[in-house]
């Protein structure tokens, strides 16, 4: 009983104290959200990305954009505009060039694009090449090394953006029906995908070791590889002829699974987005020539 009274008194006093101050909301914006269009670059971003697609381009460093325990740096100022040109040319434009692509892109585009100068270094010694958060944000890394003519650099960026953008499809429309049953035993346990080689992944019916980490990642990886890899069919779907060994047949079984996945994905895109992924691949490949 005594404890109840003391508690009552404390609550009472606290309430009175609380009433002393004018309303001071704690959700005060830490940063000034108003965009100050102080540079030509900022104005260019406003016109071509924010006004047009509702997309914010973040090239000035804010540590909330990287996970705690990771280290990253912002890009050089002079690399930002060339990077934006690359993003427009190799990611946005192909969508605008195919039937229904513009509507799909505008409806699904992430609200934030983060540009980082180098890779993201994690405390455990690993390196993150690119990330995305629930379809709302895509992070491009290694922007300081921008070189669209470099196949290695270009592949990294395109793999990241096509992969992350593909996630928006299964997040909104789910995976193709029974997609996860195509390689039912191929998926790896949590955090162990990097123990696989490319060949072992192919044997299981996956385009990369990372795609074995879950059906969602498998979907996104397959879409990304399908779009940007000029040799996708040679690398992943064309059977080796005149197979005479068990290993050769096993690889062909893996290729058959990838063919099934690609077929399911193409139909799924047609059905839920009205976008032909085949046309989109053709548009992307035309850019890469």
């Amino acid at each position, binding site marked *: 009983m005594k404890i109840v*009274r003391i508690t009552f*008194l404390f609550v*009472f*006093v606290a309430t*009175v*104290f609380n*009433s*002393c*101050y*004018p309303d*001071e*909301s*704690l959700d*005060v914006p*830490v*940063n000034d959200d108003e965009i100050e269009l*102080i540079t030509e670059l900022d104005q260019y971003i406003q016109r071509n990305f924010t006004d047009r697609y509702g997309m914010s381009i973040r*090239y*000035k*460093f*804010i*540590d909330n954009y990287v996970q705690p325990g990771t*280290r*990253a*740096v*912002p*890009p*050089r*100022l002079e690399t930002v505009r060339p990077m934006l040109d690359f993003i427009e040319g190799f990611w946005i434009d192909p969508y605008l060039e195919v039937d229904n692509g513009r509507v799909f892109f505008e409806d699904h585009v992430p609200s934030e694009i983060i540009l980082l*100068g*180098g890779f993201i*270094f994690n405390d455990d010694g690993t*390196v993150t090449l690119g990330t995305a958060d629930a379809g709302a944000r895509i992070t491009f890394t290694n922007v*300081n090394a921008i070189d669209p003519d470099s196949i290695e650099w270009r592949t990294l960026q395109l793999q990241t953006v096509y992969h992350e953008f593909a996630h928006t499809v299964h997040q909104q429309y789910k995976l193709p029906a029974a997609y996860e049953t195509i390689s039912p035993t191929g998926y790896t346990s949590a955090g162990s995908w990097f123990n696989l080689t490319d060949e072992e992944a192919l044997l299981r019916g996956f385009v990369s070791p990372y795609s074995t980490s879950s059906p969602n990642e498998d979907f996104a990886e397959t879409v990304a590889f399908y779009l940007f890899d000029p040799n996708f069919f040679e690398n992943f779907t064309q059977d080796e002829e005149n197979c005479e060994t068990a290993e050769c047949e096993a690889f062909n079984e893996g290729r058959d699974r990838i063919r099934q996945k690609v077929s399911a994905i193409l139909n799924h895109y047609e059905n839920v987005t009205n976008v032909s992924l085949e046309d989109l691949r053709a548009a992307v490949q035309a850019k890469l020539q």
Partner: protein
Amino acid sequence: MEVRNILLCGICAFLFLLSACEDEDNDLPSVEDRIESAINELRDELTQPANGWRLDYQPSPNTGLFYILLDFDDNGQVTIKSDVPDNAGEFFEQTVSYRIDNGLSLELILETYGVFHFLFEKDQSSFGGEFEFLFDDKQGSDLLFRSKSDVGSSTRLVFSPAEPNAESLLSGELATNISKYNDFTTLVVGGYPPTQQLILENANVSIFWTIDVESRIIEFDAAGVGSTVQEFLENTVVPLSHSTGYIFLDGSLVLVDPLTVNVNGEQFLIEEIRLDNFSMDGEAFCESNIMPTAVYEGSIQGVGPVKLLRSFFDLGGLDFTPMDESGYGVNIIFVIDSDDRSLADQGSISEAFPDAVGFLFNYGLVSDSIPSNSLGVSLEDDDGNRKIYLREFEVASVLGNRLEINLLNSFYYSDTPTVADEQGLAAVTEEIFAEGTVYISDVPNSGEGVFRLFNACNMYQLFLVR
């Protein structure tokens, strides 16, 4: 009764506390206003000094210092001048954007890439740099910041108002020239900082040290009489175990922890080395592949004129001596080419001897069958059967840690080789020991008896364990 007392007490407390809610609280600015005011105040502080700010920046206790000047403007831009010579002088002067945020305290964020970010991301972002600073305090005319991103103890940064002559102290050219001593440096096994020889010309004394031009740390190795290695070794050698960070200031290399050394009964204080005349006219360490090396002429106050040369001397390398009972050896992956690739992974060893497991170097071995001086590979097949293929050499000269050998056309095989094996052994040994001279150093932090043999003619290196 008890209830009434409690109620009375409650009413009294209520009235007392209400009395605390006086009107003067209404004059308290809102949180937004107070934050904005604090941000503006710090911005005013940052933009106030006529010559900007001077920062003697030490990213971590494991580094020396970088001389940096910062000039903030009201429009969110800061011009940064530094003596960091990387990327063709990109960081000598740069303008990047900055922002003052309010988190747990005021934060100064350098928003786009510049010298601080360059240092931050060195060594896979483990160098210890930072580009987000928490504002701590103003002490006198100094602004005190600390790192926001350091995990352990935070780097403290002291912004001091720059003197009118602050810019003249920038030593970008000196930093660039010192980095040229880094030629011949490889990345393998943590990298090997170059050795320099400081000659105190009036006293005819040499001091050898390694200089890490990336982290700006000097580790002293030895001192003694003489300006050449031969003369140096003919006299008493004083081993040194001192290390220190350094900073470049006004054309001088300034040691954070000065060195005092006694040589031949005379004491020398090495604190600040003025470096004036630079050239690439130093000794070439390979006759057939002449690669110029750096030389600086300068002076030390109280000591007189000095010369700073590139060297390959290493006192620990003198411990690489002939062994009669067994040879030196190493896992085959530690034979490395000029591109820092193991010859066992991709290169002549992997092609000629895919079964190679070790590299052998017999130096003064006493054996009935195996040549006393011989080098080559040990091989192991899938069944665990071992064999060794060796090529004999003769020692042409030894000067301290410099070993010159001549490969002979005399071979030892523990098992009958194929013609391809014979050709392979000849080719591999010719490749690794091209020109025949190697400089030997002990490998720091790896225990006694681990050596690195470096061929300055082809930039190959080989690690051997006693």
